[in-house]
């Protein structure tokens, strides 16, 4: 049985096949409308989330399956002190597959160790968010036709942003990727990501302070929110939250075929005036997340063969 805890749990080939399946579903969703009839997805959200939870639920409902779960720790038995291990053992009897978001880093991994059903990490603290990464790759692929050769600017909170770390880890597996890390000094990419992931990959990378400096070169601009909940003190948050705001004016120097991505929710790092620009694809990206999750659910439930290595087509 396979789980998805870390974006690297799937090989690049498996990831590419999964994204290909997502595209097929997007093109003909009706073909997949009953593939999960009789199946149940457990959504175990120990931390509130709108987009991720709804996209998982939408994905399962669009496949004909059903959903049960909770949307914050307060309405789960975690408040009574139940362990993650016990929770997943219990849910294993109620659902066929589980998506877990938890404020503690590594919680979905613990769950996968005790689970009898596939576990999907739907975000664990500031650590990993693999289905967001799949969604990001899906969007890049749909916009450019491929991921290889992309020049990407990752902008904003590169220190605490789990989506950024997961995306970097996945992107280094492609060919000729160029990274621009655009952030304030305080929110730079952690040195371990640079030393253990980016540098050994041999890809070109540079850290810059202003997005304007690299805007003309970018194929993808990946914006992130400076997240209040990742700061230990309010002062630091207030000082840094408006550091990197994308406006129409800053986009003047950008390529015509640039794609602006954002894992959402946005606060004010992308001015609303940018939403009408054809290069702003963050809502399309969020929509794509449903098809990616449909593909993932089908794959992990073993209902779509030939995606994971070792399975017959």
């Amino acid at each position, binding site marked *: 049985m396979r789980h998805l805890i870390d974006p690297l749990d799937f090989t690049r080939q498996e990831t590419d096949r999964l994204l290909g399946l997502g595209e097929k579903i997007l093109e003909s969703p009706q073909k997949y409308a009953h593939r999960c009839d009789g199946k149940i997805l457990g959504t175990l959200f120990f931390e509130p989330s709108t987009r991720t939870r709804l996209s998982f639920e939408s994905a399962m409902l669009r496949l004909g399956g059903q959903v049960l779960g909770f949307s914050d720790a307060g309405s789960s038995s975690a408040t009574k002190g139940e362990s993650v291990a016990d929770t997943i053992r219990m849910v294993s009897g109620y659902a066929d597959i589980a998506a877990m978001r938890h404020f503690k880093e590594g919680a979905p991994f613990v769950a996968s160790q005790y689970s009898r059903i596939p576990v999907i990490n739907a975000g664990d603290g500031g*650590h990993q968010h693999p289905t967001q990464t799949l969604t990001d790759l899906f969007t890049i692929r749909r916009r450019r036709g491929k991921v290889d050769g992309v020049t990407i600017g990752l902008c904003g909170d590169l220190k605490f942003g789990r989506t950024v770390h997961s995306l970097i880890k996945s992107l280094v597996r492609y060919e000729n990727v160029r990274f621009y890390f655009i952030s304030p000094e305080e929110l730079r990419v952690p040195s371990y990501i640079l*030393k253990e992931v980016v540098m050994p990959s041999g890809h070109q990378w540079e850290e810059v302070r202003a997005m304007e400096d690299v805007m003309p070169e970018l194929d993808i601009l990946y914006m992130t929110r400076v997240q209040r909940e990742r700061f230990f003190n309010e002062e630091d948050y207030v000082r840094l939250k408006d550091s990197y705001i994308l406006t129409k004016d800053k986009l003047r120097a950008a390529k015509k075929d640039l794609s602006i991505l954002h894992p959402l929710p946005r606060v004010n790092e992308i001015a609303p005036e940018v939403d009408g620009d054809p290069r702003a694809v963050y809502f399309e990206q969020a929509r794509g997340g449903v098809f990616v999750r449909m593909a993932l659910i089908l794959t992990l439930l073993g209902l779509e063969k030939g995606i994971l290595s070792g399975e017959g087509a």
Partner: protein
Amino acid sequence: MLNIDSIENGIVIDHITAGRGMRVYDLLELQALDTCVAIIKNARSEKYGKKDIIKIEGVTDIDLDVLGFIDDHATVCIIRDGKLAEKKRPHLPKKLVNIVKCKNPRCITSVENVDQVFYLCDEKAHRYRCRYCEQEYKK
């Protein structure tokens, strides 16, 4: 020169980097033994100038992974009938299980009763990372 009696049966952990002897003692949980244990700090060493040594009477088996993690320069001499029977060098373990604890307050191990697992992420720099949250272990 300080003299410590030689042992008949037991272990001598030699060439411990000076200053790390007490940490080896703690992590090997030698305080739990009721046999004779001697810690020699800052002994003269031709190779390193100074070294720590630990002699343990009556025990011939220790966790080499723990020792390798703290000090892979150390040597372990197994003494039987007053003679050197075996000499071992600890290696830097690829994985640490329940040897050190993750200090990241956001890590699941801070609340869940699971094994504390770290894996070696950089052999040259002796760096370890938590299996759960991936935070690096800082001594």
